[in-house]
């Protein structure tokens, strides 16, 4: 009993000391209330003419987001965010300069997209992207997009549907192009036999009056190493979708003979690439598979008839083959490999790859041959077999 009491006394004293010390320390040096941070939701990197980098940040003005008063909600008169930028020899210097004119701590854990300008793309993205993989606040899951002009212009666009252009870009990346995150980009960059590509977005005016700057997915840019080689328009670059892990649906318009146009929604697709050594040259046998929904035909087609399906499928196969063929030819011409043909080859012929091609794959690319077989299936033609408006067609 005595012993017990002494222990209790000791415990009380210990607790007292701990609590007093913790009050005196009052440290919490990492403490950072939500109202003390400036949440960066989108970031842009540009290269200036003097070789310095311009870092642009988009920061929501949480005070004017109006959840307190309840009314409003993003009318164009009252901007809910602002964009600022600073120039520095390194991105971190630019950040530090930006910070000197901000009353809140810049907080980079929440940006959703990084936009790089064409100048950065041309001169190589490796240098500015070092900080992004190094700085612990950064997220590797944010998306990277390229723009043809200045990256900061994309941040300054003011899309109507979302509160912030950053949010808008993120949603668009997921919906209309092949999303590339920082992690994907880094992987594509360092994997031999695979080259980087990035989706391209540009600010455009609404049509036809031009009230506001919207953001539009323009196509895809191919890189060799970390340097931009060429950008392609939306319709030119669709072939690359077949070679991704997740097939992002897109629509295709083809002319059926001279009878009229048909639209096709390519819902699912995948490719099987078989590398071979043929006559001492590398050859790829590419099988494309696609299932298609037909939302619209302007050509007179009677889908009660099996042959109509076959006709459409044949025509679509041709078109898809053409798209992928274009992609591969461009690939050969510019010595870039965004599809990852080298990677496929390396898996099939690891020894040969290691000894002969790994170092000089991009030089080898113009010499490869390929054959494309495509197999399209129309799985859904909507609610009618014959057009209700058939007479007119």
């Amino acid at each position, binding site marked *: 009993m005595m012993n017990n009491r002494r222990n209790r006394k000791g415990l009380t004293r210990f607790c007292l000391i701990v609590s007093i010390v913790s009050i005196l320390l009052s440290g*919490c040096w990492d403490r950072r209330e*939500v*109202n003390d941070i400036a*949440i960066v939701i989108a970031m842009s990197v540009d290269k200036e003419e003097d070789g310095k980098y311009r870092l642009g940040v988009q920061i929501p003005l*949480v005070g004017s987001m*109006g*959840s307190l008063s309840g009314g409003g909600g993003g009318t164009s008169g009252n901007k809910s965010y602002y964009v600022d930028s600073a120039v520095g020899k390194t991105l971190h210097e630019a950040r530090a300069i930006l910070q000197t004119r901000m009353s809140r701590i810049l907080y980079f854990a*929440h940006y959703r997209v990084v936009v790089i300008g064409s100048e950065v793309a041309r001169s190589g993205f490796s240098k500015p992207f070092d900080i992004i993989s190094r700085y612990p*606040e950064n997220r590797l899951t944010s998306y990277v997009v390229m723009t043809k002009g200045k990256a900061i212009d994309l941040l300054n666009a003011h899309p109507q549907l979302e509160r912030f252009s950053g949010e808008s870009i993120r949603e668009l990346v997921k919906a209309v192009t092949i999303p590339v995150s920082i992690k994907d980009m880094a992987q594509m960059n360092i994997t031999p036999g695979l080259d980087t590509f990035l989706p391209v977005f540009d600010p455009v005016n609404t049509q036809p009056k031009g009230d506001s700057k919207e953001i539009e997915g323009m196509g895809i840019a191919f890189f060799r190493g970390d340097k931009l080689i060429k950008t392609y328009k939306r319709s030119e670059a669709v072939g690359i979708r077949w070679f991704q892990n997740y097939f992002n649906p897109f629509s295709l318009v083809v002319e059926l003979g001279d009878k009229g146009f048909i639209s096709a929604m390519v819902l699912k697709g995948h490719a099987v690439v078989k590398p071979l050594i043929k006559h001492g040259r590398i050859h790829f046998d590419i099988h494309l598979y696609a299932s298609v929904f037909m939302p619209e035909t302007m050509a007179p087609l009677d889908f009660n008839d099996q042959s109509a399906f076959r006709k459409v499928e044949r025509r679509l196969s041709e078109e898809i083959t053409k798209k992928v063929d274009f992609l591969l030819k461009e690939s050969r011409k510019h010595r870039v490999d965004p599809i990852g043909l080298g990677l496929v080859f390396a898996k099939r012929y690891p020894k040969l790859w290691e000894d002969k091609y790994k170092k000089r794959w991009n030089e080898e690319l113009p010499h490869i041959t390929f054959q494309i077989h495509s197999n399209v299936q129309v799985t859904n033609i909507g609610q009618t077999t014959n057009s209700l408006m058939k007479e007119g067609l």
Partner: protein
Amino acid sequence: MGNWTEQQKNPLTDRSLEVCDLIELEGVPISLELDDNTSFLERMFSDSSDFVLRKFQLKNSVHAIAIFVDGLISTNDVNDALKALMVLEDGSDQIGVIEEALLPVSQISRVKDYKGLLQAVLSGDTGIIVEGNREALTLGIRGADTRSVNEPEGEAVVRGPREGFIENIRTNTSMVRRKLKTPRLKMKSLVVGRKSNTNVVVAFLDGVANSELVDEVTHRISRIEIDAVLESGYIESLIQDNEYSPFPQVMYTERPDTVSAALLEGRVAIFVDGSPMVLLVPTTFWMMLQASEDYYERFQMATVVRWLRYLFLLISLVTPALYVAVTTYHQHMLPTSLLLSIAAAREAIPFPAIVEALIMEIAFEALREAGIRLPKTVGQAVSILGALVVGQAAVQAGIVSAPMVIVVSITGIASFTVPHFNAAISIRLLRFPLMFAASLLGIYGILVGLLIIVGHMASLRSFGIPYLSPVAPMSVGDLKDVLIRAPWADLKDRPSFLGVEQARRIGEEFLKKYQRAEEQSQNKEAKERERHDE
């Protein structure tokens, strides 16, 4: 105290012995002279307007007195008893004859000393002293006003018996006896408290409950030295293992079915006169999260409801701490849009998150406390005021943010899902240190706090049983009544961690023995019949 011998002064005539506690009267004999007894009692109960001393004569003119406390007895029945002595019978003045032949009272007993006599009289019996006898009679004709048996308000159920204990210990024990009609149900009687002399009953199932446990409970209760026991909480506080823990180590209930179920599991129940709360020991933490209804509803429902309680227990413990930690240290853990919403709501708030949380939590506790204590009609006004002022006005005035109000409300609701109020209170208490830890160290602080709490719980014992059993130490077979609520057909065993003496609920050994005996007797009969036929 002690035995009074001839050498010592007779306390009945010794004027120095004025008022005293019952325990000091142990062994003080009842005098042969009625006048001595009368004067002693009159001295003892001077200025006691409720104490009645009725002098009368038996039919054979022997003097006698009846003593009782007005209000504790049933007047009509006492009148009948006195009538029997004064009018009807002409009998003896021997106390034994009176007890056995004259008094038509079912509960009657003989006492030798004043302690026993006054204990009985002050509890509501009627005492009768007859001239020339060394013993007195106590007649158990009680008639004090008690509350009627009502639905237990603290532990209401949708399905299940609607009776709850009241303040009368006999009524309470009878309610349990009505459910367990077996001679195995034992009820040991003890008296605790110098001034209150409260009757305490230790109930257990003989042959089921561990006998060492029963001895330990009896020992701990009889060791208590206290003035008065006004509620079972006094006993709880004095017999529990660790007074300084925030966790209750003794469960209380006001439901006879809960008590019966606990007895059947091999636990011990402690009834305290004057309290509708019956204590159950040993208590484990999981008992606090179980309601009697779990066992009456379908087992799937009961299982899901239990999971829900576990979830909400955790929520009520950590939600405010988590909110403070995430908004002051770990903003990257929130989805961006949620962070923006919180940032927008917090934009105009002048306080850091921890202060905001404290304001709201303390306001909530105050509202809850005010709501309980106030009369029902005023209580409603308080809750309206609370909802309007704290909930809405404080947010509109920009003193607290709307997300914080949501967090506090969720916490409050979650803490009310714990079926036993004292466990809910300890959880509510513990979330304050967790909030401080979160504001100092973030989620790391919460984890450290939780570890300390769990470590403390694992070190607790309730009458030798680890507080977290059967989870820690793990006893797999018993988990089917903790992780889930298995159907009754699968709950054949009593909890093994209680060290019960009869492990099976349905005594299969007994059944086998019984069947064997029956078979044997049938065989014998058959043989006899054969012999008879021959």
